[in-house]
C-alpha cells in the first residue's frame, strides 16, 4: 500500500503546541533516557521521525504518545533543543482530535478562543435552562424538599442522560482509536483471546496509573492519582447518591465523609497543578497550552462552587446556596460536555486504552518475530552494520 506523505504535517502539529520538531537530528538520546521507551514502542525519536517525514497515517496509528507521561528528561537531555517531550504532548492533543469524529476538538485545540466561547455559551444555556426549570417547579428560597429550586430526582435524570450521551461519544471515539491503532493495521493480527487475556490491564492502569509512577519523580504521579481518585469518588457520589448528598441540612457522614475527602483531593491537586504550571516547576510544566489552563481553571471553579453551595446550604443560606448551585452547574455541564469527549479529559479513556492496545500490539509483534525467526529470517544478534 502506498503511503501518503503530508509535507505540512509538522506545521499542523505546531498548531497543537509543538515547536522545534525540525531541529531533531536523530541522535537517539531521548529514546535512550526515557524510562518507558522499550521494544517495540521506542519513542520519542521515532515519533519525531514520523513527523519529519510527514507520515500522517503512521502517526495516527501510533500509540507511543499515550505511553509518555512527560517527565521531560528527553527535552532536558536533547542536544538540539528539539523539545521531544513537548512534541509528545502535542501529539496527544493531535491524536485526541483525530479520534474525535466531530472535529470539535480539532477546533478547540487550535483556537482557545473558540473553546472559551463554547464554554461560555454552554454555561449560559445551562444557567438559563436550570433557572427556567427551577422557577417553574420550585422556590429559589428552598434548597431541598418537595419545593426545592433544583430537585434532585430531576437533576439525577439530567445527570444520567448527560452521562449516557457523553459515554456514547467517548465510546465512538474510543472505537475510532481502536480502529486507527489496532484494527486497521495490516502487519499484525490480534487474536480475540488476546483481548480477554490482557483485559485486566484496563482497570489496573486506570486505577493505579502505575506506568506514571515509573517516571523519574514520584510527585507528579501522586498528585495525578489523587486528582483522578477524588474525581472518581465524587462522580460515584453524584451519579448514585445525589439525593443523599443533597439532603440536609444535617450532615450524613456515610456520604459526606467521602464527599469531603474527594473535595479536598480535587481542590488540593488542582491547586498544586496550577502552581506547578505557573512556576514552570518541572520540564513537563514549562510549556502550558491554553487548553491546559482552561481545563485546570474549570476544574477548580467547579470544585470550589460545589463546596460553596454545600456549605451555604448547611449553614442555612438556602437562597445563596441555590445561586451557588446554579453557578456550579454552569461550570460542570460545559466542563463535562466539552472536555470529556472533545478535550483533555478524554485521556481518561485513551490512556488506559492505549496501555491495553499497546500490550495487544506488542504480543502480536512478538508472535510475528517468533514466526520469522523460526523460518530463519532476521537475527536475534545485534546487526553488524
Amino acid at each position, binding site marked *: 500500500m502506498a503511503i501518503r506523505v503530508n509535507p505540512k504535517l509538522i506545521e499542523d502539529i505546531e498548531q497543537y503546541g509543538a515547536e522545534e520538531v525540525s531541529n531533531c*537530528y536523530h541522535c*537517539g538520546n531521548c529514546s*535512550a533516557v526515557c524510562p518507558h*521507551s522499550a*521494544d517495540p514502542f521506542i519513542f520519542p*525519536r521515532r515519533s519525531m521521525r514520523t513527523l519529519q517525514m510527514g507520515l500522517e497515517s503512521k502517526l495516527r496509528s501510533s500509540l507511543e504518545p499515550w505511553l509518555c507521561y512527560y517527565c521531560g528528561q528527553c527535552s532536558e537531555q536533547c542536544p538540539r533543543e528539539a523539545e521531544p517531550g513537548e512534541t509528545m504532548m502535542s501529539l496527544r492533543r493531535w491524536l485526541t482530535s483525530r479520534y474525535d469524529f466531530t472535529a470539535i476538538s480539532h477546533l478547540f485545540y487550535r483556537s482557545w478562543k473558540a473553546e472559551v466561547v463554547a464554554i461560555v455559551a454552554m454555561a449560559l444555556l445551562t444557567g438559563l435552562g436550570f433557572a427556567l426549570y427551577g422557577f417553574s417547579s420550585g422556590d429559589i428560597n428552598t434548597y431541598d424538599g418537595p419545593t426545592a429550586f433544583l430537585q434532585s430526582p430531576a437533576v439525577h435524570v439530567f445527570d444520567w442522560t448527560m452521562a449516557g450521551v457523553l459515554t456514547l461519544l467517548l465510546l465512538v471515539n474510543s472505537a475510532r482509536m481502536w480502529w486507527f491503532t489496532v484494527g486497521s493495521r495490516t502487519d499484525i493480527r490480534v487474536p480475540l483471546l488476546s483481548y480477554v487475556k490482557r483485559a485486566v490491564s484496563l482497570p489496573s492502569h486506570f486505577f493505579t496509573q502505575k506506568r506514571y509512577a515509573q517516571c523519574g519523580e514520584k510527585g507528579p504521579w501522586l498528585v495525578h492519582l489523587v486528582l483522578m481518585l477524588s474525581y472518581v469518588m465524587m462522580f460515584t457520589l453524584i451519579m448514585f447518591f445525589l439525593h443523599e448528598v443533597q439532603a440536609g441540612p444535617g450532615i450524613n457522614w456515610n456520604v459526606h465523609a467521602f464527599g469531603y475527602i474527594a473535595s479536598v483531593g480535587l481542590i488540593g491537586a488542582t491547586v498544586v497543578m496550577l502552581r506547578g504550571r505557573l512556576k514552570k516547576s518541572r520540564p513537563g510544566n514549562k510549556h502550558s497550552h491554553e487548553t491546559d489552563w482552561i481545563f485546570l481553571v474549570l476544574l477548580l471553579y467547579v470544585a470550589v462552587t460545589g463546596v460553596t453551595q454545600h456549605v451555604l446550604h448547611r449553614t442555612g443560606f438556602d437562597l445563596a446556596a441555590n445561586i451557588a448551585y446554579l453557578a456550579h452547574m454552569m461550570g460542570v455541564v460545559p466542563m463535562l460536555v466539552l472536555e470529556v469527549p472533545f478535550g483533555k479529559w478524554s485521556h481518561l479513556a485513551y490512556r488506559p486504552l492505549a496501555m491495553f492496545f499497546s500490550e495487544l500490539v506488542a504480543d502480536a509483534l512478538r508472535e510475528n518475530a517468533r514466526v520469522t525467526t523460526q523460518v530463519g529470517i532476521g537475527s536475534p544478534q*545485534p546487526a553488524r*552494520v
Partner: protein
Amino acid sequence: MKIGVFLCHSGPDSINYESVANYARNLPEVDLVRDIGPRPKPDPNLLAEEIRVRQLDRIVLGASSPGRLKPAFTRAMALAGRDPTEVRLASFREHGGGGANLTERAKAIVACASRGVPFSLAAVTELMPVNHATLIVGAGVGGIQAALEIADAGEKVYLVERTGTIGGHMAMFDKTFPTLDCAACILTPKMVAVGQHESIELLTYSEVQQITGEPGAYKATILKKARRVDPKACVSCGVCAEVCPTRVPSEFDCGIAERRAVYMPFPQAVPNVFLVDEASCTYVQSGGKKCGACAKKCPKGCINLDEADGTIEVEVGNVILATGYDVLDARRIEGYGCGKLPNVLTSLEFERLTNASGPTGGRIVMKTKQYNKRRKVDEWVLSADGEPPRSVAIIHCVGSRDSRYNAYCSRVCCMYSLKFAHLVKEKIEGAECYEFYIDMRAFGKGYEEFAERIKSEGAFVVRGRTATVTERDGQMYVKGEDMLRDSVVEFPVDMVILAIGLVPATGTRELAAMLRVPVEHDGWFQELNYNGDPTETERGGVFVAGACHAPKDIPDTVAQASAVAAGVLKSISRGKTVSSRADVNLSSVEARAKTLQVQ
C-alpha cells in the same frame, strides 16, 4: 547617473545596516536606498516598475553574499529596458570576513560599488617593512611543522611552548588514523629536528606575556618559567626523579599515571631534560625549608631549586598562532559517569592507556581497586597486570554537536573512535567493541575506507548516541537506541570511552586580545577569509595554524602549518607585510575610488 542601493540584512549581526543605509543616501548620484530585510524574495516585475519610474541607471546590491539576489535584479533591469550589466554587488562577506569595524567596511564596500570600482583596488592596505624573525606560539605538530618550514628556508624562528616539551597532543597518541601509522615515528624525528635546528630558538616552559608593536615589527615579551634544571648540563639520567618523594598525576598521561615533582614529561621529550614543577615541589612550596633531595643527589649538580622566572624580549616580523586545543571536561556531562565510574575513560586517557610508551606499556586494562598504603585509602589504579576488558563501548559526540556544550562538530572524534575500536579488537582477543554514533563523519582521504575496514573487523557500530552509562552490581551497562535495528539496546560493558570534543586551548582569548585578532563565538581564532585566506587574520603578520583555528586532524594541521610558512616566507622575501586589515579608512577608500572612477 541615477543609482538605487538595495540592502539585504543577511550578513553578520555586527553590521549596523541603518547606519550603512544613511551613509548610502548621501553618496553622490544615489537616488534611492531601500532596506529589503533579511530574506528578501525580489519580484523582477515589481522591481522593473520601480526602476522605470525612478529612471535608475545602476543598482547596488549590498548583502553578505548578494550573488543570490543578482539574477532577479538583472532581469528587472532588462525588463525596465536598462543596462542589465549595471547591477553591482557590494559583498560584505567576500570583502570583509568577520572582525571589528564591519559597519565602516560595509560603507566603504557600498561606496566602491556605487562608483563601479572594485573594492579590492580601492582599499589597498599599507605595506610595512618586515622583520625577518618569526614567533610561533605553541609547539604541537602545527607549530613544529611551520617552524621547520621557515627555518629550513634559512629564517630565524622563536618557538614558544607552554609545557616542558614540544610535541603537543600528537606526542600523546599511539596511532594515527586512517593509516594506523605510529604517531611517534612521524613526530619524533620532527621534534628532534626542531631541537637541533640552528635557526630555531626553542623556548619551552615559556609563555608569551605581552606582544606590542605593529605588523612587520612586533615585540614580544616571553616569560621563561624557572625550569630549575640547567638544560645545558642535564644528561637526563633520572636520579633526581628517583629520589623525589612527591607523586602527582601526570599531565602528559592525562592523570592515569603519576609523575614526580622533578620530571621529564615523556622519555622522548625535546628538550630531553628534566624540570621541576613548582606547584608540587616540596622544596619550593616550603620556601626552601624542606626536602631538596634532587639537588643534593644530582650527579651533575645541575639542579638549582632557587632559580627564578625570567623574561626575554624578542623582535619579530610575523607571529604564528598554533596554540591547538584542549579537550572538553567530560565530568560536566552527567549521565556518562565520567569521574564517578572508574572505567569510564576519556579519549585522551585511552590514548595514553593504549600507547606503547604509556603507563601500561600499551596493554588495555581495566582499573583495579588497590589499597594505597601512604594515603590509607582504597583507590582505583591502572597497572600493567590488570584484567583486560571483555567489552568496550565507545560513545561518539560527547559534548559536540550539542547545544548545551559545543554546538560544533569536533571533526576528529569519529575517526579516532574507529581507531580505538581497531586497537581494542587488535590487542584483546575476543573482546567486543560497541561504537555508538549519531552520524559517521568519515570525510577525508581514506577515511570512509577506514570506517568500512573497522566495521569488517567485527565491531558493533550502532547508530544512535547512547544517553546513559549505569552501574548495577559492579557491572556497567550502556543503553541506547539502535536506529538501524529499530530497537533499544542495553549492553553490559567493562570499559566506556567517551569521544570528547575539542575546545580552544586555555588562554586563547587572552592571546587574541593581546594581538587584536578576533575570535569566533566558540572561541576559535578567526581567519581572514573562510575560503580565500584561511591562514591569515585581520591583523597583518599574524597567522593561524592548526586546531586553534578550528578542530582539525593531523594532516590538515600539517597542511595549514606549511601554508602559513609560505605566507610568512612571502612577506620575508618581499621584505614587506600588509598592515592591519581590521581598520579600513573610509575617507581614503572613498578618495581612491573617486580617482579610479575618473581613470
